[in-house]
């Protein structure tokens, strides 16, 4: 990865977005699990963050099949 010739591929970017998006979704939902005393459920900012994270994960999923094309 630290060689002079290495460049990230579509599949690398895809996996990064997929894993990052899924982890972000878990983290956002965990706010309500960890902060159990909080009222109001998932707020508007959380909903937007959740949608953006899910979209990122979905885009990542669609990039993985593009394989070794440079990102």
């Amino acid at each position, binding site marked *: *990865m630290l060689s*002079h010739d290495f*460049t990230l591929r579509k599949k690398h*970017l895809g996996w990064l977005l997929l894993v990052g998006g899924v982890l972000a979704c878990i983290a956002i939902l965990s706010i309500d699990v960890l902060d159990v005393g909080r009222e109001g459920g998932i707020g508007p900012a959380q909903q937007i963050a959740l949608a953006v994270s899910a979209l990122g994960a979905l885009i990542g999923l669609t990039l993985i*099949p593009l394989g070794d094309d*440079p*990102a």
Partner: protein
Amino acid sequence: MAISTTETNALRPLNRVLLGAALILLLFHFVVYIVYAANLVAFPFDYDQGEGFELVDTIMFSRGEWPYRDTNIYPFYSSNYPPLLHVLAAPFVWVFGPAYWYGRLLGFLGTLLTAAAISYAVYRDGQHKLIALLSGLAFLASNTIYHIGPLFRQHMTMVLFETLAVVFLAHANEIADKSKRRRTLLLGLGLVIAAGYTKQLAYATASAVGVFLLLRQPRRALVWGAGAAAVGVGIFLWINIATSGQWWLQTISANINDYIPDQIFGLFRLWFGLHGFLIVPALLYAAYELYFSRLSLYTLWFVVATANSVTAGKWGAGDSYFATAIAAMCILSGLFAARCLRGEWRFPATYLTRAAAALFGRFLRGDLWKRALSGAALIVIPLLYIGYGRATLHMPTDGFFFGALAQVLQITPNADNGFYDSAGRIAGGYADIGHLTTEADIAAGWHIVDLLRAVDGPVLSEEAAFNLWAGHDVVTNPTQLLNLANNGLFDDRALVAMIENQEFDLIVLRAQFYPVPVLVAIDTHYARSETVRMNGFEYMILRPR
């Protein structure tokens, strides 16, 4: 039935007429912008709230003083912005003395340079001169850029450095000559640091540049990123030590403000309503690069800058926070337009093209789709720029030329002071400016200065210019005190005591952005003696009760 080559050629005259119409429309925007800038350059008082404090910062730097100060002691003043714009403007203080015009002129010229850089970027990659020109003009035509371009504020100088950095770095990785590549990286990353030390918001562009370098070559990204970070952090620590920690307190700690969800939803709706004709092509180009080509720095910049625009929902922020995204949008939409007109789309065989072939097999066979796309592009692309020009329409509705034109176009003012703004001023955080100042405004300003000249004691004013021109100390930077107070970082006792003791001979209020205890003390111990209307705002003159 698709369009044949002959039919495509037949559309070219219509294409030229429509492109000409788009050019005329955007040139009209440019003329309005020049008129506005010339008007503001000649105006010797605050036009946008807080400009005078930028001038105070510049004066301090011209004397070799830091503006990051302890706000708990007289004159309760501090800046909350990084120093580069003020440092650049400081030589003008040496030559011309304190004045607004050079700060506004620098801002205006910076936007012209940004537009030129956008045009250059589009021409370099798109090879279409007229689209390159339209892209640069589209940047200047944006309601947001128009508002803040000729102000004595940091924002557009930050966008200038950001744009130059991105344009320099966009092809840095492809430079074969090692020393030339290093010089380009050095210059590009230096411009990123310059943007950051003009305004904190440039961290988004720094992030986009970092991701871009990481995607292309992680080794280079780590080496150069570490170097740039070391320089940036080194400057930060130096200023913080030199100001005894006030730099951190005033520019970082005090900038954590309340978030207003309604403001950001309104501003995003407005951003799309005004710029949608170019946002959609920019998004399409970004999607093309994501799936069929390599991600360019322009695309990453657009995505990161747009995402970072959510910070416009902070108290004190506004539509100016979209300026970086608008610059990136102009480049991406220009590249989309140029590629459409030159018919240079390439779709390598992937699962996506195979799926498209399965769905639209007959249409996609041969060159049929390319000819259809080229024919449609000849009409649609100019219409996008015409639609954008209409969506962003803003102009004065008074005066010999603009008054007559407004009548012809059947446009009536929908903002203060004889001004039409297609934005309609409905979203919180949208700048309530854009109109031209008048001789009456200037006379009203000098009247307030005369009131200040008539008293000997200190004057508390929400606008620095009155104090500067009357020869009084500039006391407080109200919004910064409010920022600090909102974060529990301002001890108001000394200032409130001065107000309670009626030590100020005059108080001048406009937006009343002081912390609540200060406003309460003013209301208790001072009474309004006069109201002066200037530039569409009411300036309240208060004297001891």
